[in-house]
């Protein structure tokens, strides 16, 4: 049981002199682990299946000091989904949803591609992030301060955002050459593709942000019981605004990776349907659509699972369109696992069995 890395995220080890705190962080780890159990099992199953049926799937080779192989490839390709899923996780935890992440990715890509030639890579990245921050603010204000249903509020930018991106690029695919910007999607860091490093970095920064401040606690409190949070004085509006801003920034970064990867901004296709994958990844990772507890590591696992399914199907030579069918089945499976009536039925079954055992 990989308990240590899980606990280290959620709680720092308390001073050894206070045994209750130590006990508590172990318990916290166990709870987090239980929620990660299913995505882990699913991911392991997919990988094992590959181990058995796809020779060379686990082969990793070093070329020019860079790592290559199917596993690396999966993580690399999953980067945009994992990034958006990180932000989406926070938004879902507030009992919200952000449908606009795909459109925001397109906007970020378009801004970067437009700016990179005249102003250089760094300016392009910063401006793209500024644009996605603005998008997050927009969503956040609509939801948190104007009190508009999240699904409706973010629908606006989902519809208009892609149009804005197309407006920026004039409907063209804008190509560019810039070493800084190209590194983001195509470069390497410590032998690993740069997107993987980026995801890891964002995960660490975000993890620290939500767990080293009270943001994580407030997000969970607001999403789990808005009324009780109000009684306790939790600044709900600010918390929601921050969640949407973070989600926008994550989407912007994901857009930059995609743009950098293909060395072009394609406003028509960049981030298409990615909001759905991001929501799916977050839900697989144990964050509920009805808010409350969230799990950033789970979102990463969810993203990896989706991508490894896709890659597995590809490497087996099965037509790519089957991934959609598999995805559909995954969603239903995840849903049923979280279904209240089913749980109740199982609980009753168990109780009956126990009683029978006791009677016997």
């Amino acid at each position, binding site marked *: 049981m990989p308990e240590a890395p899980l606990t280290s995220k959620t709680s720092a080890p308390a001073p050894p002199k206070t045994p209750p705190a130590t006990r508590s962080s172990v318990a916290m780890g166990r709870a987090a682990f239980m929620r990660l159990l299913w995505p882990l099992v699913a991911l392991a199953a997919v990988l094992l299946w590959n181990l058995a049926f796809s020779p060379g799937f686990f082969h990793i080779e070093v070329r020019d000091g860079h790592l290559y192989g199917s596993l690396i490839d999966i993580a690399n390709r999953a980067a945009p989904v994992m990034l958006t899923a990180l932000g989406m996780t926070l938004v879902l935890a507030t009992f919200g949803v952000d449908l606009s992440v795909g459109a925001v990715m397109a906007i970020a890509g378009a801004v970067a591609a437009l700016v990179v030639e005249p102003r250089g890579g760094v300016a392009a990245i910063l401006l793209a992030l500024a644009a996605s921050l603005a998008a997050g603010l927009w969503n956040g204000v609509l939801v948190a301060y104007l009190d508009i249903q999240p699904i409706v509020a973010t629908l606006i930018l989902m519809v208009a*955002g892609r149009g804005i991106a197309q407006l920026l690029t004039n409907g063209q695919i804008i190509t560019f050459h810039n070493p800084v910007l190209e590194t983001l999607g195509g470069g390497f860091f410590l032998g690993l593709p740069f997107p993987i490093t980026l995801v890891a970095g964002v995960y660490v920064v975000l993890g620290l942000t939500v767990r080293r401040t009270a943001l994580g606690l407030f997000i969970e409190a607001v999403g789990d019981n808005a009324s009780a949070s109000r009684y306790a004085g939790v600044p709900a509006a600010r918390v929601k605004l921050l969640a949407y801003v973070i989600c926008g920034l994550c989407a912007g970064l994901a857009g930059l990776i995609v743009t950098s990867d293909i060395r072009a901004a394609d406003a028509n296709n960049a981030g298409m349907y990615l909001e759905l994958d991001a929501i799916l990844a977050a839900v697989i990772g144990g964050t509920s659509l009805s808010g409350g507890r969230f799990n950033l590591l789970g979102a990463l696992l969810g993203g990896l699972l989706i991508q490894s399914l896709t890659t597995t199907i590809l490497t087996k030579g099965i037509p790519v369109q089957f991934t959609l069918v598999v995805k559909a089945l995954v969603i239903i499976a995840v849903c049923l696992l979280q279904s209240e009536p089913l749980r109740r039925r199982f609980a009753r079954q168990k109780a009956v069995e126990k009683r029978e055992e006791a009677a016997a």
Partner: protein
Amino acid sequence: MTSPASPPPTTPRSSIQSRLLASQNVSLLATGFVCFLLYAAGGLAYQGFLSKNVFINLLTDNAFLGVAAVGMTFVILSGGIDLSVGSVIGCVSILIATMVKSGAPPALVIVGMLLLGALFGAAMGALIQYFELPPFLVTLAGMFLARGVGLVVSLESVPVDHPALTRLTGLNLLLPITAIIFLVLFAAGVYIAHYTPFGRNVYAVGGNAVSASLMGLPVARTVVGVYAFSGFCSALAGVVFTLYTLSGNASAGIGLELDAIAAVVIGGTLLSGGVGVVAGTFLGVLILGIIQTGITFQGTLSSWWTRIAIGMLLLIFILLQRFIQNRAAKSQGQG
């Protein structure tokens, strides 16, 4: 009116709900006004905008969107959402094209597809109702499944050249057949919403599911029925699309669910359920169509302005609804 005792206390009182309802009327009026304004503006700006042909094209070009939007209206009225409509259109169109090409009788294929669509919707509705799953995720799965199946059948577009179908599209009874299906389905939608117990139950369930069940209404049957109806409408939209393009394409209708939702919201239906009218959706579809047509007429404006314009309209309508609700709540607070 027989009133034996007490004085007639008919003076309506203001309350949040009545304000909401007023907002409903305001929304519908605003939608009608915007629709008229856009159409008039188009007529002023461009020669021939108001011609009969342009209007017929408006109906024909938006027929499959309109058909899908009718189903979406019911789903949203019931307090749910259906993301699968666009994919079902693609799936149905490719299935029709492939099956007809391989010699199956078109009439049978079409009827079969409509049934399949209804069944597909009913299955999603059952998952939503009986397993208490979020409609968003269930219909997302439906979206992936239908698109996947469609693409598995064929990645390429398949032409439809069966004489019966080409003759059907060639038919001109005042309007092309697709436009007729669109109008007939809308009429049917208005009828179902207004004149059948099912339609009224949809409003009741969307208005307050708990109350509806305490009133002894068949909530479960209504929810499953709503998704079945939406599945049927999506399949019919797929048929319309096939007739419109005389081809089957598994990639058809990508993102169409968004346009359908936008048409419904612009038409004044609240996404929280229980409030709205099917006729509003008709106006919403027309508005989307007029914007599209106007941008085509303009010539230099690019297609993405459509999306931006729709987004702006959505924003205006949502803010309008919000504003009226807030004002109602505030004046309620003051007594």
